[in-house]
């Protein structure tokens, strides 16, 4: 009698590769991932433009949410981390935060339940964008000192530069963008796999057990509910951390001291 015995997990590609819906076979093919990205972009535009258009003195609920989001990015991330003179980066950081948050949150929307950030294309491209931006900012505001300041940090004995310089070089040019992309990808991927595994276990326990033994499905089901709550937290946290790290790299590129 199979309690949870002969359960086999489907291959990973089955969970993350979606069939093309429209324009199949062309480079512009649209599948579920692309569709969710387009929908979230449209939703963000509608929310932010609609919420900031009227600028009422007593804000309504939508305007309130928009203003709170702006305050959160501007005070909590830009001014605190990048610097008080860097308000011009708030639109970029805010867009980044909202885009990642909206993409992440599809993970727990019933019936859709797939975070587009779990495909390497999106975190990879966002990380590449941040990479180009902070290197450009660094070289523009500090010139060549940006590179030397990183590769030869002051206060280190000269003999240690043999060790420190290669590490700092790899850190600045490879580890930063790679870890930025992989952190978001791996978190969303792990969450999606975990939720899928628990849902499949519940279904398996319900269909393969006779009579009263179906009760065993309660375990994975309750766990699934709990993990869904946890994944909402992870979706917010990963969007926040991605934006925060971008802000740290930008602040480091603008001001050498921090």
């Amino acid at each position, binding site marked *: 009698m199979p309690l949870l015995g002969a359960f086999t997990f489907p291959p990973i590609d089955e969970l993350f590769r979606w069939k093309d819906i429209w324009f199949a076979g062309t480079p512009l093919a649209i599948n579920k991932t692309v569709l969710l990205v387009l929908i979230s972009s449209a939703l963000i535009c509608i929310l932010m433009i609609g919420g900031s258009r009227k600028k009422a003195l007593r804000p309504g609920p939508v305007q309130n949410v928009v203003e709170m989001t702006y305050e959160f990015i501007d005070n909590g991330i830009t001014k*605190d981390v990048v610097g008080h003179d860097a308000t011009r980066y708030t639109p970029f950081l805010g867009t980044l935060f909202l885009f990642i948050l909206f993409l992440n949150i599809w993970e727990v929307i019933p019936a859709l339940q797939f975070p587009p950030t779990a495909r390497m294309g999106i975190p990879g491209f966002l990380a590449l964008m941040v990479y180009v931006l902070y290197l450009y900012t660094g070289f523009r505001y500090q010139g060549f000192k940006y590179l030397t300041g990183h590769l030869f940090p002051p206060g280190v004995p000269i003999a240690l530069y043999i060790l420190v310089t290669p590490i700092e070089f790899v850190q600045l040019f490879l580890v930063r963008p790679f*870890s930025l992309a992989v*952190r978001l990808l*791996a978190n969303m991927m792990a969450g999606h796999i975990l939720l899928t595994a628990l849902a499949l276990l519940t279904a398996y326990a319900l269909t393969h057990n006779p009579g009263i033994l179906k009760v065993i499905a309660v375990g994975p089901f309750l766990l699934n509910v709990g993990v869904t709550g946890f994944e909402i937290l992870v979706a917010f946290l990963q969007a926040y*951390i991605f934006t*925060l*790290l971008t802000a740290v790299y930008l602040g480091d590129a603008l001001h050498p001291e921090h």
Partner: protein
Amino acid sequence: MSTVLLAAQQAGELKAGLQSIGAGIVYGAAAIGPGIGIGLVVGNAIQAMARQPEMQGTIRTTMFLGIAFTEALALFGFVLFFLAKS
């Protein structure tokens, strides 16, 4: 002839099995250090918050930064797990 085929099949199974074991060890080993590291970061952040509650906001931001840097190592292990398995 059949023994050769059998041997080839067993070699394939052995390879798949060893790959799975390797992938498991990769992720398990990669999770040890970051586990300890995140524990240290959060523990010390809580202590700092308890000593100076008025600095809570700054400490929390710095704590998330520390977690993010530490966690990256575990996530590299997670990616390597999939690379080692396939």
